[in-house]
């Protein structure tokens, strides 16, 4: 047990088994980004998957909307300690986008409009664990929350759910992305409190 702070009793007791350790619940939807919100129109928007062999498959906005999508309701957890339950989204499963691309990659790097990057194991993006989402709460995803489209990987800390995602590059090597280079954890499992390197 840590050092007790006299007089601190705490109120937001973590009795909810859906809230990972060290997190508190919020009803708001806080915004965290490293720079200005990129304004990407759906006309300009393009998303691509690139394999380790350089094979590239891309979608325009109408092409993305034409793909099979699903509505999903998930809990999300930010490394800055807030969690939000039952967030409602619509998007396309990442495995739908990867489809039959020929890849033996173990990792993926998400690249975004605005220059942000984040790395993930490819296995964490498959089997219904990750989406390219374009609706939140039944409405188009707003720019400050990553619109037109963002990655959503709810089982990892939310900095992995890259906003304004533009490209997924599949790779055999696990290189750190933006925050990972700045000392944040390579994987980011909220249930194991993997906030920073070495956690």
């Amino acid at each position, binding site marked *: 047990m840590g050092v007790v*702070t006299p*007089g*601190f009793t705490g*109120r937001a007791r973590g009795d909810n088994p859906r809230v990972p350790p060290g997190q508190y619940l919020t009803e708001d939807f806080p915004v965290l*980004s490293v*720079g*200005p919100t990129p304004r990407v129109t759906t006309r300009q928007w393009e998303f691509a998957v690139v394999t380790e062999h350089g094979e590239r498959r891309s979608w325009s906005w109408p092409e993305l909307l034409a793909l099979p999508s699903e509505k999903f309701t998930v809990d999300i957890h930010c490394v800055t300690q807030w969690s939000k339950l039952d967030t409602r989204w619509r998007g396309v499963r990442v495995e739908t986008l990867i489809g039959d691309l020929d890849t033996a990659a173990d990792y993926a790097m998400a690249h975004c409009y605005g220059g942000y990057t984040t790395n993930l194991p490819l296995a964490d993006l498959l089997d219904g664990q990750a989406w390219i989402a374009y609706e939140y709460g039944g409405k188009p995803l707003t720019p400050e929350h990553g619109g037109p489209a963002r990655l959503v990987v709810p089982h990892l800390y939310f900095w992995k759910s890259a906003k304004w995602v533009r490209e997924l590059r599949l790779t055999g090597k696990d290189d750190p992305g933006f925050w990972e280079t*700045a000392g944040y954890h390579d994987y980011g499992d909220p249930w194991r409190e993997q906030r920073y*390197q070495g956690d």
Partner: protein
Amino acid sequence: MAGTAVSGRLAWQVARLAAIRQETATARTLVFDIPGWPGHLAGQHVDVRLTAADGYTAQRSYSLAAPAEGGRVELTVQRVPGGEVSEHLTGPYAIGDPVEIRGPIGGWFVWRPADRAPVLLVAGGAGIVPLMAMVRARRAAGSRALFRLVYSLRTPDELYYADELRKPYAGLDITYVYTREMPEGRAGIPRRLDVATLNSAAWPADFEATSYICGPTGFVETAADILLSLGRDPRSIRTERFGPSRD
């Protein structure tokens, strides 16, 4: 865009409250003693963990308000109504009481004394905290980098670091924007940060300044959008947002 790499595990360290400076009716600066603190860059933050007698813990992130002086570290905490951690830190928390702190964290929203580029700081309310760390780091290092600060606040009573900011200091220009109530004797009417204000306060585009914006989400969105509309390179604008968004 690489930041400061952190090697090894970021360990929790015991910090004891050494001094309190009341900034406003609802915000105070907490000065901690943390033996063995490794130092930090202006703009970085820490995680603070409180532990109750029964082992329950709560943690939050707070910006560092000043450069480290040996093992002395300063945070400025704004009371958030109903805020489990901030209400303790701005209330019963007393000299000598321990908390646990780990950090420093963050390598992007930082200013280094070796940076020579002109700097624009845009603060919304409590967003002044990491920006004040930059102002203080500049002074401590004797840097001659040109700084401009635009500080938006609702009323004069909400001004943090008032005594320090009122002293003129070469190379630092300050523009105050009052959104609800003007100081006595000052002309004009309260208004929000707008294009005209930021256009005259910001450095001309060809100065290749670095802009740091910190505040509530809506404020940061507005300020960043204005700078973009004034032709600033998005890569020269660094942001730190806090608090809820509209949806």
